[in-house]
């Protein structure tokens, strides 16, 4: 089929999924609670206030029209060009604020956290998985497997709290609720402080942003590594028994080449697919991690808004999460097709 046509087909197929996702969010956030505006006032509000809120948010219109406005807002290019973010409605808490703007400014922090956590989780998980598979049945294998099981059972926020205790209280490294301290953040190019500071040659900013990122991404990364560990190990064990691995050894290739170039290269693909699926789980953990470390990302935004009963904001955050997951899964699929020539057929 060729890589290009696969990518195009895949992108086209994403549209119905997205639509389904957006509809689902609408159903949960607008339809399920009955009257979100009334809920905002905890059903004790002055009816006049409730009605005014409904008018501002466009909730006095019939449901189908709200739905059209909702979808329409997301694809409103004019709005996007004007504001730099899509139309996700207005905040219930402060109706002068656009949810889209808030969501977009909170998002890069989550993205950065997610990226580094994924890197830590996958590198840790894969390396341990390979080591475990190579020493099958012996002590290192058992130890590593237990590590994987236990880390999965630890609630990510608990680990975060323990880390804060150890590094924060006893070493004075508490989270400050900022992505960077002591220094001004680098000018925005990608929105990721680490990348931006390198791109500008700003070493101090880089160091400071890494310092802030360290504990949260380590926490999230460790808890998620277990899944990669288990999958890598299982796939490696199966792959190492396949004939082309023995055939490679029969040609006199070095054991490290065989382990990584032959076994892992082939065992890795399902792991990559899993990475895409796991990303969804990662985002859930990210919400908790951000709350624990007061990391100013989309997760913390969402949790804060819950306390404010700001349902439009919560809806906006959920939509953003959904878009993010869809995009990532698309990227992973394309990457898999690139790495494994057989998928494209």
């Amino acid at each position, binding site marked *: 089929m060729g890589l290009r046509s696969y990518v195009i087909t895949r992108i086209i197929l994403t549209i119905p999924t997205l639509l389904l996702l957006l509809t689902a969010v609408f159903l949960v956030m607008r339809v399920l609670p009955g009257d979100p505006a009334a809920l905002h006032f905890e059903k004790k509000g002055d009816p006049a206030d409730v009605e005014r809120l409904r008018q501002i948010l466009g909730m006095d219109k019939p449901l189908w029209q709200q739905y059209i406005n909702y979808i329409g807002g997301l694809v409103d290019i004019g709005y996007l060009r004007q504001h730099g973010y899509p139309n996700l409605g207005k905040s219930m808490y402060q109706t002068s604020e656009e949810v889209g703007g808030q969501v977009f400014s909170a998002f890069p922090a989550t993205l950065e956290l997610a990226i580094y956590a994924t890197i830590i989780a996958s590198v840790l998980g894969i390396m341990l998985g390979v080591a475990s598979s190579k020493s099958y049945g012996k002590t290192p294998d058992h130890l590593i497997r237990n590590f994987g099981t236990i880390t999965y059972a630890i609630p990510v926020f608990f680990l975060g709290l323990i880390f804060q205790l150890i590094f924060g209280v006893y070493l004075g490294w508490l989270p400050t609720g900022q992505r960077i301290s002591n220094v001004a953040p680098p000018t925005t190019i990608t929105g990721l402080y680490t990348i931006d500071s390198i791109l500008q040659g700003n070493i101090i900013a880089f160091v400071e942003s890494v310092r802030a990122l360290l504990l949260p991404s380590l926490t999230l990364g460790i808890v998620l590594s277990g899944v990669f560990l288990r999958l890598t190990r299982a796939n490696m064990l199966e792959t190492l028994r396949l004939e082309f691995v023995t055939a490679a050894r029969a040609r006199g*290739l070095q054991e490290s080449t065989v382990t990584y170039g032959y076994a892992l290269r082939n065992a890795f693909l399902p792991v990559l697919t899993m990475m895409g699926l796991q990303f969804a789980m990662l985002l859930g953990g990210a919400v908790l991690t951000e709350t624990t470390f007061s990391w100013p990302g989309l997760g913390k935004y969402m949790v804060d808004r819950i306390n404010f009963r700001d349902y439009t904001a919560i809806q906006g955050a959920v939509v953003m999460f959904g878009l993010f997951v869809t995009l990532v899964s698309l990227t992973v699929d394309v990457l898999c097709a690139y790495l494994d020539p057989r998928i494209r057929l």
Partner: protein
Amino acid sequence: MPLLKIDSLDVEYRTNRGRIRAVEDVSFSLEKGEVLGLAGESGSGKSTLGLSIIRLVPSPGVIVRGSIEIDGTDIVKLPEDKMRLLRGGKVAYIFQDPMTSLNPVKKVGAHFVEMMQTHEPDLEKKVAIERTEKILKDLRIPSERIDDYPHQFSGGMRQRIMIGLAIALNPDLVIADEPTTALDVIVQAKILDLLASLRDRYGMGLILISHDLSIILERCDKIIVMYGGSMVEYAPNAELHKNPIHPYTQALLQSIPNIELSEQKLSAIPGSPPNMLNPPKGCSFGPRCPYAKEQCRMKPSLIDVGNDHFVRCFATGESAEVE
């Protein structure tokens, strides 16, 4: 000095359920340029024997006893790094199923280049590619396909690639484990012809492993028949044709269908292969042998019956050595 000399080799698999003696008391030698056939059913130990020559018997397999000398060096005791250099370079192995012997995510040409550069670290990539193209041409694979992936080739072509990999470094010994089993009959003949012509050209020693006795009889100078992990008969080709002694060999020869006969009753050997976890006491073929006697409860040893012909059976008339 013979190219390959194996003496009293025992190979066991140590599993959770018990010990399996996959290869028991095997001894033979092979000179350069000779073609040796290893015939036997599945489970007879022939593949394990082949793998032990390159010391790649899969875990939990262990070479328990005996020696394997390649050009005089006993490789059983050799340190792993030296052994690794022998693999591919001095001794090459062709695996049974071409569909699964090549790295699916590696281009075919890259297989060759990688192997060459492993054995000759200073080799330039350009030179390696040139050599690869030449080998592919010899194998009648279009050299434009050097950057194709294994799954883009047919089974027969893949096996030719495997053979190409085996001879690429000019080994002295090539072991072909069921090289044609996964292929259809017409391709089978081509592959075997290819192996024969390579042997003629390069003069290497060739060990051909197969459960198909007719192939072995057709192509090999010397033949070893294996059953239940032991060598039951060893003879030069003509001698085996003329004078098969072991009842198993006789039964095998009889069961080969003759295409020229219009009516033929296909004979099979009654019974089934021995359970290697709990092998029969004495001669392993005893339970299925039409000539089995009281004696056969003892293990027969390999007896020289002349003409470079050895048999492990009491039917030769020699009395048993007490096991």
